[in-house]
């Protein structure tokens, strides 16, 4: 798999999660303090007016972070757009993308602005590849990425994990990672190393 354009989404735990607009000052603060390592943070975009849209967006040179509202299920969405500097294999790229996503989730959970109102679920994770050229949504591509994705998910979640390949051929490659347990994002981050 040559693509680097991975997207990972961790859903929030409850419907009472903060509203997208509440993330605007938080993301600005991240830019001020350079809080995401290995990402050149640039700007914040507010799409709260778009129903089930990207909510609030934090744009970096390497990736787009958003408080995505797709399907009415908010979550932190990480979309990698630039190649990974020091991650050459699919497995390395996966780990780097998960590390960045989990880091952002942990930062949000611990942000005083949300005062414990924000927790991410880990029993269901959305994984996509935004690349119809190199990763069309076909059973063949799923078969190609499944072993390493499964291995990483097993390690992260430390529980039985299932991968569900979803969507139509014209959609993005999409996999839902499900597990019985829901460890904290910091647990996942520590298992990733």
């Amino acid at each position, binding site marked *: 798999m040559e693509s680097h354009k991975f997207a990972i989404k961790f859903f929030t735990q409850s419907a009472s999660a903060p509203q997208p607009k509440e993330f605007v000052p938080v993301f600005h603060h991240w830019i001020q303090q350079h809080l995401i390592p290995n990402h*050149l943070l640039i700007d914040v975009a*507010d799409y709260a007016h778009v129903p089930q849209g*990207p909510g609030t967006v934090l*744009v970096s040179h390497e990736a787009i972070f958003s408080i995505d509202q797709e399907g009415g299920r908010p979550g932190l969405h990480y979309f990698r757009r630039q190649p990974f500097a020091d991650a050459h294999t699919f497995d390395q790229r996966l780990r780097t993308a998960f590390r960045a996503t989990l880091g952002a989730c942990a930062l949000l959970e611990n942000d005083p602005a949300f005062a414990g109102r924000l927790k991410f679920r880990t029993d269901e994770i959305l994984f996509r590849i935004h690349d119809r050229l190199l990763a069309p949504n076909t059973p063949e591509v799923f078969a190609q990425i499944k072993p390493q994705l499964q291995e990483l998910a097993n390690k992260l979640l430390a529980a039985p994990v299932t991968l569900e390949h979803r969507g139509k051929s014209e959609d993005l490659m999409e996999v839902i990672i499900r597990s019985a347990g829901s460890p904290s994002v910091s647990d996942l981050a520590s298992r990733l190393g």
Partner: protein
Amino acid sequence: MAVTWKDKLQGVIRDDWAREIDSFEAQIALRKNGKIEERVFAETRLRRGTYGQRYDNGQRHDGVASQKLPYQPLTKGPDTMWDAPGMQRIKIPFGGFTPTQMRVLADLAEEYSDNICHVTTRQDIQLHYIHIEDTPSIFRRLAAVGITTREACGNSVRNVTACPIAGVCNTETFDVTPYAKATAFYLLGHPDTQDFGRKFKIAFSGCKHEACGLVSLHDLGGIAVKRTIDGKEKRGFEIYVGGGLGAVPHQAKLMFDFVAEEDLLPLSRAIGRVFAKLGEKKNRQKARLKFVVQKLGIEEFKRVVVEEWQKMPEDPSWRKFFDEIPRYEEKPREQIVSIGLPNKPEGYDKWAQTNVYRQRQAGFATVTVTLPLGDLTADQMRKLADLTHKFASDHARTTVEQNIVLRWVKEEQVPALYAELKKINLAQPGAGTIVDVVSCPGTDTCKLGIASSRGLAGELRSRFLAKENELSEEVRKLHIKISGCFNSCGQHHVSDIGFYGNSRNIGNYQVPHFQVMIGGKWHDNAGSYGLAIGSIPSKAIPTVVNRLTEKYVAERQTEESFQNFCTRLGKKSLKTLIDDLAKVPPHSADASFYTDWGDPREFTIGDMGVGECAGEVISLVDFGFTAADSEAFEAQLLLDDGKLHEAEEMAYKTMLTAAKTLVQLQWQDAPTDADSVVREFKTRLVDTKLFWDPYHAGQFANYLLNRHAEGPDARYTKDTVHKIVEEANLFIDAAHKAHAKYQQSLNLLGNN
């Protein structure tokens, strides 16, 4: 090596567009190698709709201090960092697109952007936060479905717009759609539209008294009219020129009260030629056509254009586009079958009041899909494409009010369509009402934005939605349009209530403000522009809107329009109404005034950059040489790939391009076929010893002359092709020297 979109779409894209994209890709490579000057590259990308975006100079004020964004040092234009995300504008002529095209736009938003498709006030689609390196793939995927971004920006003919209900309208004289299409594609890349000092906007309207295509605010506009000539009814246009908004708004002036349809394209070309010749090239603030018209006066401008029209070289290519016009047809996919009205879903009646237009064609309706601030997600765009196919016979158009209309919907199926739109959160009522606030991108993404137009628009929209049921009918009908600065991309001049962003210094702080404009006329093709009544802090603007609308409701005379109401009360009286709101509380009392809507950072105008809308004024010679450079580069790549025939041909083409560029310095309308180029090159440049090296004499010229006379070396070995590729590079160097020599000779003549 990984497969590319170029490989995948080989043979799918029409040849000339594929060549242009290949050439742009080569120019990207050349710029990365420092082989193209940044100004030339900037105008090259701008002419492909690839803009810079806010903070692309590598500086951003984070609310506390200005921070440097540590991009790599390479630039893609003056003060524009290569890696900084940018905006891609995609031209949609007359706003018309098909479900297939909509799906590709959705895919692009999903794969390269932030998942949002944005509809602009000129019927374009914009994608934001795009990386320059992704643009060739984006162009190819668009070109594969018949969309080009060529001339979506830069000093060129921009998107040709038209009324979104043209062809189905009850009051139009005739359908202007095919004329808008013909004009758009005839002038696209036309040699006579390549040397403008500024952009050139064209619009078409089918009606004079509706808002329609907003002809009055365009450089060139046509309103459909019919005349009886020799007993026969003829189609034609009232032609208006020299309109424009911006800091100095001008109403377009009537140039001809009737131009026959067959004269439309040649006349447009003649106007383009006059603009290229007489338009300002150095001072971009005075470079739009409106300043030429103002300076000459409409009668003299008309005389100059007619003279140009009569003497310009024949260009029969317009015929091909004109001949397509009668063949243009838009119709429903199948015969209408009445199935009776199904149950109306909840909310249907309210939505239908504002979002459904009964077409001229009995039994059909046009449905407006209201987009908040012109935005929809990739997923919504894709599903809307499906609905366009299912309900609208594949006919959708963007509107200048930043919405999308679906045409040819069977009336009895409108409730079912509404139910489907509801499922994808696109069944918002209030199209064209005060709730449907229009806004340019402003400080969200635009380098020129001063205040947050989208932030204000979102705020006003939320407030109207919250009290929608309380809004009186006369208030509901009003339009609000907002621009982030005086450049008027939000079209605030032609709105009942308009705003444009500015800033005021209060103590040691800067405070975002909006200038309040009232009484602009949307109908009559943007018939008159509003009056400024004062600059008010951004945070007090919702109160301004409340006061103006409440006064209108309270003091309106029977059936009095908002424009007439403003005129009757007068600017002074209305200014008095809002004067107290101009006062800004001290920072210590209310710090919220010192931030903008939707942005918690302390306000500053320090992030403003140099706008790219004006483009870079690059001479045709620069463009010609850049094209030759990129062809030489491609020839080298082809050679490296072992494609010897193609490499040889490309090297020859490189020399022709450079030679043509030099010939056109002396003869703008010189024929461009190879024989003519070589003949004129020899006569004008070689025989006169302009293209002449003191040591090598005519050797470099002979590379072209010999190749042209004798054809390619039939051996096609790596060595023979390598030789001509090298010769092409030497020829370009010699062409640059010849250009310098020519310039020098002109300067000497000038000094004498």
